[in-house]
């Protein structure tokens, strides 16, 4: 073994690299180097904005990954303003997604050539399962009520609003582990910082074992459009006081949005902010009891009311990456004691196996097929099919 001594290395490095004596004073050197550095940072800022401009048209096709990357840090208002046109038709698809409006949900009755109507309340994960089930059994019909990364509050509220408006025999409630952090929020605008949606939903609290809803002040895109540029609006005030993901630095639009570097700083800040929220609700051991008590109450109410209405309830538990089997572990006692039918993805595709997921975090198609088969098995065991009307 031949090892260098530190002094040898240091002295060699020193002797071979001693720069020529500076002609400027230290203060001058600092100022000049600092100014040059600022110039370069300014240059980078301008260059990023010029090379990766983000389209301002709400209906523009999705821009390249790099253009999107440098826009992640724009204020939430700034991003939302770009998505909202003067009316709904000229607004981006994402702006219109997820609003709790039962008038737009369909079908309400079993379509011809189908033998079972299933109402699904959830997010893209549950949407993909519905698609996979439809491929496996084309005689199924789905009433899909989804929102991007919908938290349980949204799915549960959608289910409640939808009661009595359809003739589905099966109702499915999708719960996504990574969306649990949104339970103490009122809108997808605050916690989905990088790609915010606008839809709103109530926040739930437990009072003496009963769920109490805090209704958002805004219920539609039209209402949102009205309050967007008003920092004094009741909605923004409500977010400030009742939405745990809200931060004025992240939300409010100002001139700093023009700087690419400030946007990068804001993105980093947002990451920490949302991580802090997530860490307060989820640790390596599992989910916090407070939110889980609320979620369990939602699940109980969902199953009880569905049975009351003569429907067959199923809870779809999506344990996605980073959450292991924590969600199903937290729900299992309640699902077991109340004999609520459920399908947990952990038993089919564990979250710790990265080959179960595609890059954006969704399950790969074969996993969706396996989950769909499991759901179909549960349905086929308990729900008789209707005769197909032609």
């Amino acid at each position, binding site marked *: 073994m031949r090892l260098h001594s530190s002094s040898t290395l240091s002295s060699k490095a020193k002797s071979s690299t001693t720069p020529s004596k500076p002609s400027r004073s230290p203060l001058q050197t600092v100022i000049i180097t600092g100014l040059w550095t600022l110039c370069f*940072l300014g240059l980078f800022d301008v260059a990023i904005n010029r090379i990766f401009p983000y389209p301002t048209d709400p209906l523009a096709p999705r821009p390249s990954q790099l253009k999107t990357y440098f826009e992640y840090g724009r204020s939430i208002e700034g991003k939302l303003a770009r998505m909202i046109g003067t009316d709904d038709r000229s607004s981006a698809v994402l702006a219109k997604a997820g609003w709790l409006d039962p008038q737009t949900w369909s079908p309400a009755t079993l379509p011809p050539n189908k033998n079972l109507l299933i109402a699904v309340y959830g997010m893209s994960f549950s949407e993909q399962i519905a698609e996979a089930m439809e491929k496996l059994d084309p005689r199924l019909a789905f009433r899909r009520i989804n929102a991007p990364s919908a938290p349980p509050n949204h799915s549960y509220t959608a289910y409640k609003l939808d009661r009595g408006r359809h003739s589905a025999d099966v109702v499915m409630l999708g719960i996504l582990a990574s969306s649990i952090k949104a339970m103490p929020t009122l809108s997808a605008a605050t916690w989905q910082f990088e790609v915010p949606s606008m839809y709103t939903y109530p926040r739930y609290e437990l009072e003496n074992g009963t769920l109490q809803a805090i209704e958002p002040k805004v219920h539609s895109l039209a209402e949102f459009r009205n309050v967007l540029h008003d920092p004094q609006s009741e909605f923004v005030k409500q977010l400030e006081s009742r939405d745990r993901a809200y931060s004025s630095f992240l939300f409010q639009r100002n001139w700093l949005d023009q700087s690419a*570097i400030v946007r990068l700083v804001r993105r980093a800040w947002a990451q920490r902010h949302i991580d802090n929220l997530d860490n307060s609700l989820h640790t390596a051991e599992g989910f916090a009891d407070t939110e889980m008590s609320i979620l369990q109450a939602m699940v109980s109410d969902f199953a009880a009311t569905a049975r009351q209405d003569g429907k067959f309830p199923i809870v779809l538990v999506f344990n996605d990456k980073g959450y292991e089997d924590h969600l199903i572990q937290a729900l299992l006692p309640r699902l077991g004691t109340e004999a609520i039918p459920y399908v947990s993805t952990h038993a089919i595709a564990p979250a710790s196996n990265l080959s179960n997921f595609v890059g954006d975090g969704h399950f790969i198609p074969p996993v969706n097929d396996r989950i769909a088969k499991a759901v179909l098995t549960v349905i086929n065991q308990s729900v008789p099919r209707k005769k197909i009307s032609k």
Partner: protein
Amino acid sequence: MSFNSIEFAVLLVATYLLYRVLSLRGQNTLLLVASYAFYAWWDIRFLYLIVFSTVIDFACGAMIGSGWVSKPNRRLMSAVLLLAAIAFNTVQWQAVQLSLSPLAMAINWAALLPATWAGWWVLGATVLLVAIAPLFYSYSVALEASRRRTLFLVLSIVKNLLILGVFKYANFFAGSVADGFRWLGLDADRITLNLILPLGISFYTFKAISYIVDVYRGRMQASHHFWDFALFWAYFPPLLAGPIERATHLLPQLTHRRHLSFQQTSEGIFLILFGLFKKVAIADGVASSVNAVYGTTGAISWLDIVAATVLYALQIYADFSGYSDIGRGVSKLFGIELMLNFNLPYFSKTPSEFWGRWHISLSSWLRDYLYIPLGGSRQGVFKTYRNLMLTMLLGGLWHGAAWNFILWGGYQGALLCGYRAVSKIDPPSNEAVSIRNLLGSAPAIALFFGLTCYGWLLFRATSLEQVITFTRLLIVDFGNLSLSMPKPPLSALLGIPVWVAYECLEYLTHSLKLKLWFPTPLRAALYATLILILIMGESNAPAQFIYSQF
């Protein structure tokens, strides 16, 4: 407190500003308070461990070096030890709730002191130690010099190794025994321990041992100034993850007035920036990709393992050298030089060259306090190989109490022996290099980098089963180019080429202060690039420094 946290930035700025206006004594006191605050931020209870070790090592050093400890120092040590036991261990600080906004403090008086007798044992043991210390002192000063020197050398080393052993290795050995019991079908629950590993324990233990041994060997005078010695022991920039400073290098700097030069300050700021860039943009950036492969329970391909292991090689280097750079940079701001810990290790062509470039403070420590005392290479071929294997196995064990670290140490020892057997003489590592030279030696560098990466696979693996599975896949799945590993973020994708290019230039110019040769605009462009990528990297999930857990 981590170097990449807001709290540390506040501590550093406040300490630096105060430091500039204080005298030497004031500066040392300030640095000691800052160091204790730095460590206590993680867990105040373990500050007692640092104070306890400081007192024992100070006393042992003085008894070895001069055979006496002055009366004021003895009183001071007793008082410090008792106060530390009360303040850091007996008082239950979780009973004090501090709020910054609005500023308020609430104390739960009922929970301020331990509720059970078990909570008082540290204070009891300390009182006992302070009570018997005068008797032991009277006994030891009367001893013959060589016996006294040996006694205190053994006492200090045993104390240091015992603390290290209890906190670092007890869990591992208890776990291994428990596994054996379970394998035999016996109840093993009572054997399991759950001790918290004090941050940086391996680093400060080795630093303390080097002081005692150097005093014993007569390489340095024992310190007789308790507070300077306490600062040497707890000095915060290298406290958690090195470099493992030698007392011969650090103590004299702490006892003399420091001159803060402009060049030192500017180098310090650059090192902090460069270290943060490596840690935040690169190490934290690639961590999620590496963790996804090494943490998966499902099927992975040959390319997944290769890509994740190469990224881990970059991650651990960026993380560890990033810490060293920040530590050296922070220390330079206070006019105190720390030793170089990394010198372009991935340009090594042989294992001996690698160990001259990687974690230099540990490899030189192992050389001076283990390999050479074992006989080094002076006692024939067989003993040389034995000494190399022993040194590297213990080097592996130093990293952590797990079988994969021992395996990694054994692998490094085998590489050293193998290369030694094949080449007989190591090529000079600091030879002048040119692009032609670099291209000529590229195959040797690439081959050794591959071998190093396999070592990192052993190091990173989460279990022996994973080592076997990954090794088998590397052979039987060779050439499977399907990739399920998530792509690293943009900060890492941009940061790695910038870093590699900078290191290539450093290697070619044989200069670790390359930027000083750049004209101002080019230097500013480098700073701006590092700042931009660092800001991009701030979105990466922050992780603890890997080596601070050792």
